[in-house]
């Protein structure tokens, strides 16, 4: 599930479709600490009662790759644009390093917005295509050449610098585009769904390459996506937003292992975590025929019901009558293992996160050599050391 972003060969860095932004820092080198701080940052659109971004607090470290993720309308793009200077900040502050940038214009912030749209100029050499924006900013020729050569080295384009873009392969052209952003050496890169116009296969290739390049450059980066897999594979840390409110900001591992609430638990991970509302019983919670032991402390805040979360790989298939009874609907064979999609036989038990039109199945990962048949009944229970318990009312995490 968790793919690490291996430092892939940059020579095989074929198809980045990003583009450089336009905000141009004109300076020699870049030694300032580019931390980013959202400090109670709030955006309320005129005419709205509820903020689109509500008292956002995130501290981003120098060189960190932070991903803002959440469903459509959660405020992730608005947050990024507040940092870029494109949205007004109605409350709180935004800091880059030790500068309060809350009221600065976009071009005074030393950030580069990286877009998916990008044009290469056919009559200009690759070097000029990478460096022309520096020329506009009045950087002297020697400095431009130096920065272009450095970027070309990182992007493996050195031997093509004096050619025209037409002579390049598609992948090399994409790298020229990235080069245009790099030569500006901004304090912060901002990327808003840069992969959204790529096809599925290319998206997978490219996300690893962006992450790898970002690590080589060590430039603080804030990246927006709606895709949790993209977030998990790319980010040093992930900030999950919903309805303008930060749900959790943590490393992919922490996010996966200890989601702060039911929303994060259901959003992060694929296939999604099973979330079942179950009654509290003496010494634990009732899960089908079983009482699962849960520490009394963990249940203290909850009511008579709690939500138990278990990831498909942490589901144990037991003997007949042990745990929760499921009817198998679909089996997805993956070779070494298989995913079983089932429905609780007791139709009073519903999984959280489904909607009216679609009953959410209970998903279990099972040994590929012991796969149940469609229509068969199986009994499942969580591996108690990887079980999550949430307050049924507030959705907040109860277990540690």
């Amino acid at each position, binding site marked *: 599930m968790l793919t690490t972003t291996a430092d892939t060969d940059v020579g095989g860095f*074929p*198809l980045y*479709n990003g583009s450089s932004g*336009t*905000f*141009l820092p004109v300076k020699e080198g870049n030694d300032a600490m580019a931390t980013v701080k959202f400090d109670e940052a709030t955006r309320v*659109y*005129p*005419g709205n009662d509820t903020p689109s971004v509500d008292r956002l607090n995130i501290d981003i470290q120098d060189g960190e790759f932070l991903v803002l993720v959440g469903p459509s309308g959660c405020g992730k793009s608005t947050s990024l*644009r507040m940092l*870029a*200077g*494109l*949205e*007004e900040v109605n409350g709180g502050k935004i800091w880059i390093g030790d500068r309060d940038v809350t009221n600065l*214009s*976009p*071009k005074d912030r030393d950030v580069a*917005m990286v*877009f998916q*749209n*990008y*044009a*290469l*100029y*056919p*009559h*200009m*050499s690759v070097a*000029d295509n990478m460096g*022309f*924006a520096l*020329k*506009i900013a009045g950087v002297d020729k020697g400095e431009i050449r130096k920065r272009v050569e450095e970027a070309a080295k990182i992007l493996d384009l050195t031997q093509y610098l004096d050619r025209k*873009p*037409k002579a390049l*392969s*598609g*992948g090399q*052209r*994409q790298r020229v*585009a990235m080069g245009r952003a790099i030569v500006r050496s901004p304090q912060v890169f901002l990327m808003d769904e840069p992969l*959204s*116009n*790529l*096809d599925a*296969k*290319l998206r997978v*290739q490219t996300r690893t390459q962006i992450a790898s390049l970002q690590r080589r450059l060590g430039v603080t980066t804030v990246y927006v996506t709606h895709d949790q897999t993209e977030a998990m594979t790319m980010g040093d840390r992930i900030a999950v937003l919903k309805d303008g409110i930060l749900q959790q900001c943590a490393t992919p591992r922490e996010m996966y292992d200890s989601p702060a609430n039911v929303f994060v638990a259901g959003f992060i991970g694929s296939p999604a975590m099973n979330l079942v509302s179950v009654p509290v019983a003496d010494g634990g919670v009732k899960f089908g025929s079983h009482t699962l032991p849960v520490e009394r402390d963990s249940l203290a805040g909850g009511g008579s019901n709690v939500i138990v979360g278990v990831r498909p790989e942490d589901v144990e298939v037991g003997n007949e009558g042990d745990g929760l009874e499921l009817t198998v609907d679909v089996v997805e064979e993956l070779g070494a293992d298989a995913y079983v999609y089932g429905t609780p036989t007791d139709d009073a038990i519903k999984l959280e996160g489904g909607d009216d039109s679609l009953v959410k199945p209970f998903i279990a990962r099972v040994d590929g050599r012991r796969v149940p048949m469609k229509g068969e009944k199986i009994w499942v229970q969580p591996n108690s050391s990887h079980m999550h318990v949430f307050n049924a009312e507030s959705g907040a995490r109860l277990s540690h």
Partner: protein
Amino acid sequence: MALQITTARPDPALLDLPWSTPLEDWPEDLLAALPRGISRHVVRFVKLSGRVLAVKEIKEDIARREYAMLRNLRRLDQPAVEPFGIVSGRVSADGTPLDACLLTRHLKFSLPYRALFSQGLRPGTETRLIDALAVLLVRLHLTGFWWGDVSLSNTLFRRDAGSFAAWLVDAETGELFPNLTKGQRAHDLDIARVNIAGELMDLQAGELLDVSIDPVEISNRIVTRYEELWAELTATEEFDTGERWRVEERIRRLNVLGFDVDELAITTDIDGTSISIQPKVVDAGHHSRRLLRLTGLDVGEGQARRLLNDLDSYRASTDRQNDDEELVAHDWLTRIYEPITRRVPRELSGKLEPAELFHEVLEHRWYMAEREQQDVPIERAIEDYVRSILPTKPDEASVVGVDTIEMPVIAD
């Protein structure tokens, strides 16, 4: 999956286009022009039932978004190309799914900037293009449209009485907001500035633009022109109660710039000694609307201004200042404008739009009169123009072309 066609103007001929073939492999006999240059997406211009359509191959969700955005912009009366339809669910003969196609109508008599430069233009053309783009950007921003990718390549230009009018062609990155923030406007302007400079540098590298022209200086013009116009259209003005004529004066200034004021906020201070005014809603097209009302002619703003001037001098020379304006306009249309514009032989009709031709004839008459040191009747001017000038002009009715480099968005 079955082919799905969304269009506001169903045309059965659409079904005959080879949708199961990737756009870049479409047969040449379908194309209105061979692809010139290279673009970010694959774009082709095809002939369909007597019109020219631009076909762009992109992902379906992006195609739908851009289609809806272009429709919205048209509804808001903004100068944007007309969306024609979307074709999705395309599958090649071997079963491979193909990207959707967004169809837009080619804007007749419009010119891509690169085509303009390759004609070898009068000096100062580059600044006139920038001025037109500044007007377009201000208009879009007043509507709440954030473009996100302002450039000469994403714009088409139409001749407008010696200057140009700019039209938006690519709305892929755009978004509509109730109002734009200062930061959003500044961002668009900055994108425009950098893109324009890049585009002009490329023209120089391609030897289409004289090296004596400084791309950076020209690109800075977008910022100053935009800011001047924005201030004139939106700034609050304060004056003493005794200077009430300044309200009229402000409206007149906006009219001269081609804008009507639909809503003006007027406030006084507590003791009533000073007044402040601020235009709240302004509409471009002051002259073209007036001409349309008087004559039914739908032309560019600069052309309308020119035609209205000629209408005024007609009125003065025929001593009809006291007649009903509409009656005079009708006579001018049938006795002057239509006879002149109809003098163009059919084979030369693709050179210039009628209103632009009329403007050129007026200019030509002025030069003839100067040369001969006497008044020249318009009949003689059009005769001379059609004989000596018009045949030397390029055909501009359907100039198409795309000009950036294709950036693949699918895996090799």
